[in-house]
C-alpha cells in the first residue's frame, strides 16, 4: 500500500523531528528497545486478559492489539481536523434532512438517484412525509482518515451509522497508561473524560421526560463489537439492552426489568438501522413498532436509523459541490478523490489504470475498499469485468499512499502505514471532536476504511495541549469510572436470566467434575474389585443420566472402554467442553455486570481449562486419565473460587441473588436425581449389599464420607446416611441445605404475598419424611431401594418452582414471529 514516498508522521521534512514528537521520542529512547518490546508483549497479555479479545478462541474472532507507541497530534493539527470534520458532519446532516425530506438534491440532480434508491440503508420508513420533523439525524460521526505524501489528511470513509470504535480508543488509553506510564510523564495529553461526560449529558438532554431513561441498543453478545457496547454502556452509565428486552405499550417503548416496565426515551443505537423494527423494516430481529414510536415522538434513536445512507462511498464524489451548494463553503478536510462510475468516460479512466484506484460498491458504506494493486492479475481482470458490466454500482477513489508512523516491531522500531479514525459528537449546539482517536497500523491485508476489522494493531492517539489549553485533571492518567450500583429491581430481566443460567451451568460443571473424578479414581486402580466394577457401572449410569457419557457405553465390560467413555466428556463436543462454552457465553453476556477481578478470574480459568482439555493425550496414552483427574480437580477448585468471589459481592446489583438461585436449584436437583440413580439397581430390594454399596457411593459423591464416619464410625446404615444426604440442613453438600438456601433466596426475589415464597416448605418436609419412613421401617434396606420414584418426584418439584420463578420474575419477553412475510403461500386471483 505504501507508495514511493510515504510521508513520515515523525519527520518535519527538513531532516528533523516534529516538535510534538520530541517528548514522546525521548521517553521512548530512555526506555530502550528491549523494555519497549517487553511492554508490547505485556500490552498484548493485558488486552487478552481484559477480554477485548474473545473469551474462548474462535468464539468471536476479534483480536485487537495495541502498539505501545502512540500517534501524537499537535494542538493545531487537531483543531484543524476538528473544524473540518465538524463541517463535514454538518454537511451530512443537511444531506440526510434533504434525502428523508423534500429530496431537492435528487430533483435537481445534485445527487444521482443511483446512490440513494438502491441503497439498502435508504430506509423509506424514515422519510418525513408530513414535513414536520425537526429532530436531527446525526449525533455521532466518525471519519476514516489517511494522510497523503502532501501532508493533507483526507477522509476515505464517513461513518454515520454507528461510528464504531470509540471504546477501543478509551481502552487503549487506559491500558497504555497502566502498562507504559513512563510515556505520559511530562506530556500534556488531553483526557477523554470531559468528552464522555458531554456525550452522556447530551443524551440525557434528549429525553422527553423525567421518567424515561437512555439505553444502548446492541445486537447482543454475538456482535463483533460487543466489547465496545459493554464498555460504552458502562462509561455512560446507561442500560445495555437488546431488541428482545424492549416492548411497546400504547406507543411507548419499555425495557422489561425485574420490577416491571421501565420507560425508554432515547436509544443509543449500536446495531444496524435496517434491523431495528421487525414490523416495518427487515423481518426477524427487531422491536415491532419502533418506527411508529419514533413518529409518535415517544422515542429518539441516536443516530437516526436511516443515517447510514450518507456513508455511501459514491456520495464522496459529490460532496465538494454539495458543500458549496448547501453551506456555501469548500470542504476543509477533503475526501480522498473519488469518482462515481455513472458515466462512461469515468469508467474508461478507471479501467485504463485500475491499479491507481481503490474500488468500493457505490452504496455500501460498510464496505472495505478493494485494492486492485494488491490483487493477482486474473482477479483484477474479473473485477474490471464486473465494473464494466454494472459501472453505476461502483465508486473508485484514488489509491492512497498513507503516511507511516513508528511501531514497536520484534527488532526495534519499524515504520508502518497508519489510518486514523476520529470521532465527533454533537453537544446540542455544535460538533466536538473526541480529543484522541483510533489509529491502526496497516498491513497489506488490513482494510483502509469502512467496517472495523476483527484483527488489528491499534494505536492510542494523543492530542497534545497547547500552552493556552487547560488540561483537566492529572495529566496522562485515566481515572477509572466508578461502577454504578444498581438495585436488583432495575436489573433487566435478561440479565437476571443470564445470572440464573450462569449459576446453573457452573453447578453442572461442578457436578460433572465430581462424578468424573469418582469414576476416574476407580478406572485408575490397577485391578478393580468386583465391587468397584459394580460401582463403575452405577457411576456410568449416573454420568449418562446427566449427558456426560453415552448410555450404550455402560454395556462396556472392559476398563479400557469405560476410560474412553470418560475421556470423551473432555474432547471436542464432549459434555464438559460444551459446559465450559456455555459458562463462557453467559460470562461474556454479563461482563458489564461483573467486577473486573471476577471477570478476569473467570476468563483466565475458562481459557486455561479449555486449553488443558485440548491438550489431553489420546485415549491410548496412559497419562490421559491422570491428566483428566487433574482437570476434575481444577474444575472443582474453579467452582469453589467462583462461589467464594460471588459471595464476596463481586457481582454488581442483584446479580448474586440469581446466580445463587441457579446454583442451588441445580445442585438440589442433582442431589435428588443422583441418589435416585445410584439406588435404582436391579434386585436392590432383595440384595441389601447393593443398597449399602449405593449409599456408600452416594456419600462419596456428596463429599460426606468423612462427616458420616465422624458421626457414625464405619457402620453404614440407610437412615443415618440418608439423613446426612437429604434431611440434615447443616450439611452444606446435602439437599436440605440447598432447599433452605432456596427458601431464603425466594424471600428476596419474589414479591411479598406471592405464594411461591412457601413453595419450598413441602419439599423440606418430604426430605425429613423420607428419612423418618426409612428409620421406622422394619427393613431399612428394602424401603431405601424403593425411594427412587419419590426422589425423582422431589427433583421434579424443584424444577417446577424454578420454572415458575423464572417465568414470573425474569424470563425474557415472549418470542416474536413474523406474519405475512415469511414463506407464506401466495394467494392470488386469476
Amino acid at each position, binding site marked *: 500500500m505504501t507508495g514511493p514516498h510515504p510521508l513520515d508522521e515523525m519527520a518535519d521534512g527538513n531532516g528533523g523531528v516534529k516538535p510534538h514528537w520530541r517528548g514522546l521520542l525521548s521517553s521512548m529512547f530512555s526506555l530502550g528497545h528491549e523494555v519497549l518490546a517487553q511492554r508490547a508483549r505485556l500490552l498484548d497479555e493485558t488486552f487478552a486478559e481484559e477480554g477485548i479479545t474473545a473469551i474462548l478462541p474462535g468464539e468471536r474472532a476479534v483480536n485487537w492489539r495495541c502498539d505501545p507507541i502512540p500517534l501524537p497530534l499537535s494542538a493545531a493539527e487537531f483543531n484543524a481536523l476538528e473544524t473540518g470534520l465538524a463541517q463535514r458532519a454538518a454537511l451530512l446532516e443537511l444531506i440526510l434532512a434533504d434525502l428523508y425530506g423534500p*429530496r431537492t438534491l*435528487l*430533483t*435537481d*440532480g445534485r445527487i444521482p*438517484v*443511483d446512490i440513494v*434508491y*438502491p441503497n439498502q440503508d435508504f430506509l*423509506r*420508513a424514515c*422519510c418525513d*412525509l408530513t414535513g414536520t420533523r425537526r429532530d436531527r439525524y446525526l449525533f455521532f460521526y466518525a471519519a476514516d482518515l489517511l494522510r497523503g505524501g502532501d501532508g493533507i489528511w483526507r477522509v476515505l470513509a464517513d461513518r454515520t451509522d454507528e461510528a464504531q470504535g470509540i471504546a477501543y480508543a478509551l481502552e487503549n488509553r487506559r491500558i497504555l497508561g497502566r502498562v507504559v506510564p513512563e510515556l505520559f510523564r511530562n506530556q500534556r495529553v488531553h483526557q477523554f473524560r470531559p468528552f464522555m461526560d458531554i456525550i452522556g449529558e447530551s443524551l440525557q438532554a434528549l429525553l422527553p421526560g423525567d421518567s424515561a431513561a437512555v439505553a444502548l441498543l446492541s445486537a447482543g453478545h454475538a456482535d463483533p463489537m460487543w466489547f465496545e457496547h459493554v464498555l460504552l454502556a458502562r462509561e455512560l452509565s446507561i442500560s445495555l439492552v437488546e431488541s428482545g428486552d424492549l*416492548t*411497546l*405499550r*400504547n*406507543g411507548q417503548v419499555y425495557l422489561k426489568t425485574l420490577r416491571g416496565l421501565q420507560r425508554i426515551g432515547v436509544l443509543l443505537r449500536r446495531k444496524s438501522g435496517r434491523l431495528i423494527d*421487525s*414490523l*416495518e423494516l427487515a*423481518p426477524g430481529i427487531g422491536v*415491532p*413498532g419502533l418506527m*411508529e414510536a419514533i413518529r409518535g415522538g415517544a422515542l429518539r434513536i441516536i443516530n437516526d436509523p436511516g443515517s447510514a445512507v450518507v456513508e455511501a462511498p459514491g456520495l464522496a464524489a459529490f460532496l465538494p459541490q454539495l458543500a458549496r451548494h448547501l453551506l456555501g463553503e469548500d470542504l476543509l478536510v477533503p475526501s480522498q478523490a473519488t469518482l462515481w462510475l455513472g458515466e462512461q468516460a469515468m469508467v474508461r479512466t478507471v479501467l485504463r489504470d485500475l491499479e491507481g484506484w481503490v474500488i468500493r460498491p457505490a452504496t455500501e458504506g460498510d464496505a472495505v475498499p478493494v485494492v486492485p494493486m494488491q490483487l493477482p492479475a486474473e482477479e483484477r481482470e474479473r473485477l474490471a469485468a464486473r465494473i464494466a458490466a454494472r459501472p453505476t454500482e461502483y465508486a473508485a477513489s484514488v489509491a492512497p499512499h498513507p503516511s507511516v508512523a513508528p511501531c514497536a516491531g520484534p527488532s526495534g522500531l519499524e515504520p508502518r502505514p497508519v489510518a486514523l479514525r476520529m470521532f465527533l459528537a454533537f453537544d446540542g449546539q455544535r460538533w466536538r471532536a473526541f480529543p484522541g482517536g483510533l489509529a491502526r497500523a496497516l498491513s497489506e491485508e488490513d482494510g483502509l476504511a469502512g467496517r472495523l476489522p476483527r484483527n488489528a494493531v491499534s494505536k492510542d492517539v494523543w492530542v497534545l495541549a497547547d500552552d493556552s489549553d487547560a488540561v483537566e485533571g492529572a495529566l496522562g492518567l485515566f481515572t477509572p469510572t466508578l461502577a454504578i450500583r444498581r438495585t436488583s429491581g432495575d436489573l433487566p430481566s435478561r440479565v437476571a436470566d443470564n445470572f440464573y443460567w450462569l449459576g446453573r451451568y457452573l453447578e453442572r460443571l461442578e457436578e460433572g467434575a465430581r462424578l468424573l473424578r469418582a469414576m476416574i479414581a476407580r478406572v485408575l486402580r490397577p485391578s478393580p474389585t468386583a465391587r468397584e466394577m459394580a460401582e463403575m457401572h452405577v457411576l456410568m449410569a449416573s454420568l449418562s443420566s446427566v449427558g456426560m457419557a453415552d448410555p450404550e457405553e455402560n454395556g462396556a465390560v472392559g476398563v479400557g472402554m469405560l476410560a474412553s467413555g470418560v475421556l470423551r466428556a473432555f474432547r471436542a463436543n464432549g459434555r464438559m467442553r460444551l459446559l465450559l462454552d456455555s459458562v463462557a457465553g453467559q460470562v461474556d453476556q454479563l461482563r458489564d455486570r461483573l467486577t473486573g477481578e471476577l471477570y478476569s478470574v473467570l476468563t483466565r480459568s475458562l481459557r486455561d481449562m479449555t486449553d488443558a482439555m485440548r491438550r489431553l493425550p489420546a485415549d491410548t496414552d496412559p497419562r490421559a486419565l491422570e491428566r483428566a483427574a487433574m482437570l476434575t480437580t481444577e474444575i472443582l477448585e474453579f467452582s469453589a473460587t467462583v462461589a467464594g468471589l460471588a459471595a464476596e459481592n463481586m457481582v454488581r446489583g442483584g446479580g448474586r441473588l440469581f446466580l445463587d438461585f441457579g446454583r442451588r436449584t441445580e445442585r438440589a436437583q442433582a442431589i435428588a436425581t443422583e441418589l435416585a440413580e445410584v439406588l435404582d439397581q436391579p434386585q436392590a430390594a432383595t440384595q441389601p449389599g447393593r443398597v449399602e454399596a449405593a449409599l456408600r457411593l452416594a456419600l462419596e459423591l456428596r463429599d460426606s464420607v468423612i462427616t458420616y464416619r465422624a458421626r457414625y464410625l464405619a457402620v453404614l446404615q440407610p437412615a443415618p446416611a440418608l439423613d446426612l444426604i437429604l434431611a440434615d440442613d447443616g450439611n452444606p453438600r446435602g439437599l436440605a441445605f440447598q432447599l433452605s438456601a432456596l427458601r431464603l433466596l425466594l424471600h428476596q426475589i419474589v414479591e411479598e404475598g406471592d405464594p411461591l415464597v412457601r413453595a419450598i416448605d413441602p419439599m423440606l418436609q418430604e426430605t425429613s419424611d423420607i428419612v423418618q419412613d426409612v428409620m421406622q421401617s422394619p427393613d431399612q434396606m428394602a424401603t431405601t431401594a424403593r425411594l427412587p420414584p419419590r426422589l425423582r418426584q422431589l427433583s421434579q418439584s424443584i424444577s417446577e418452582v424454578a420454572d415458575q420463578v423464572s417465568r414470573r420474575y425474569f424470563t425474557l*419477553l*415472549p*418470542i*416474536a*414471529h*413474523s*406474519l*405475512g*412475510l*415469511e*414463506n*407464506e*403461500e*401466495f*394467494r*392470488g*386471483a*386469476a
Partner: protein
Amino acid sequence: MRYRVRHISRYGYGTPVDLAAHMVHLRPRPRSFQSVVSEKLVTSPMAARRRDGVDYFGNPVTWLFLDQPHADFEVTAESVVDVEFPTPPPSGETLPWEDVAQAARLPVAWQEAEFRFGTPMAPLNDSTRDFARPSFAPGRPVLEALVDLTSRIFKEFRFKAGVTSISTPVSQVMHRREGVCQDFTHVMISALRGLGLPARYTSGYIRTRPPPGQPRRQGADQSHAWVGAWLGPAHGWVDLDPTNGVVVKDEHVLLGWGRDYSDVSPVRGVILGGGGDHWLSVSVDLEPEPVG
C-alpha cells in the same frame, strides 16, 4: 364501475398470543380515476392502539397494536369505490422504448426512477430480461411492446396456485412458467427493469365471473396484483395485468403500489408469545354495485 369490496383476514394461533403488531395495506388508494365512496376497517379483538396513515409511496396504511392475550385475530376491510382506469394513449403514439429507458435516467424522472432498480422480490435477472427481449424490438413504441409482453406472459405461463410462496425467486417462476398473479407481476417487473424501464408492483382486486349458469361463491375472490409501467414523461403510467393478459380498465380495484410485494403486502405483522402453529384464512368479495 362501482364495486363493493370486503376483505377478511383471520389469524388463528395454536396458543394465545400476548402482544401483536400489524401493518396493513387494506384501504383503497384514492386517485383521480378511483374515488373511495366509503371505507371502514374493523378488527376483532379491537386494537389497543390504531393509527391510519400514509406510507412512503403514498398508499393508505393502518398500524394496529394489540396488547391483550388473544387466540385469534380478524381484520375486516370494507369499501365502496367508483373506478375507471384511464384509457392509455394509442400505442403507436408512445415513445420508442429505448427513449423511455433513457428518459428514466434524467433528473426530471427522479420519482419514476425509483422503480427501475432491482429489489429483493423483483431483482434484475438475465432470464426474465431475455424472455422480454422478443417483445422489445429496437425502436418499437413502448406501449406496443408492453402489451405484447403482457399477453405473452398470459399465454406462456400457467396459472397454478399452491406452487409458489413469498420466497420463490422470479428465476424459478421463469423457469417453471407457473405461479399466481404475484409471481407473474414480479416476473414482468423484473424483465422491464432489466431493460431499464421503471415498473411497479400494484396491489388490489379483480372482478371474477362464476362459470356460466353458476352463482358467485361468497368469499371466493382473492387479492390481485398487476404491473404499473412507465410510458415516459408525456404519458405517465399504464396498468397492465399479465395474469389476464389485459390492459387494466374497469374490472380492477386499486389498493396501492410499491417496488414489489413486500412494500404493499396486504397484511404484515409480528406476534409475541404463544403462536404455535398459526394459520391464516382470507376471504375476499368484490361485487359490482348499482350506482345511485
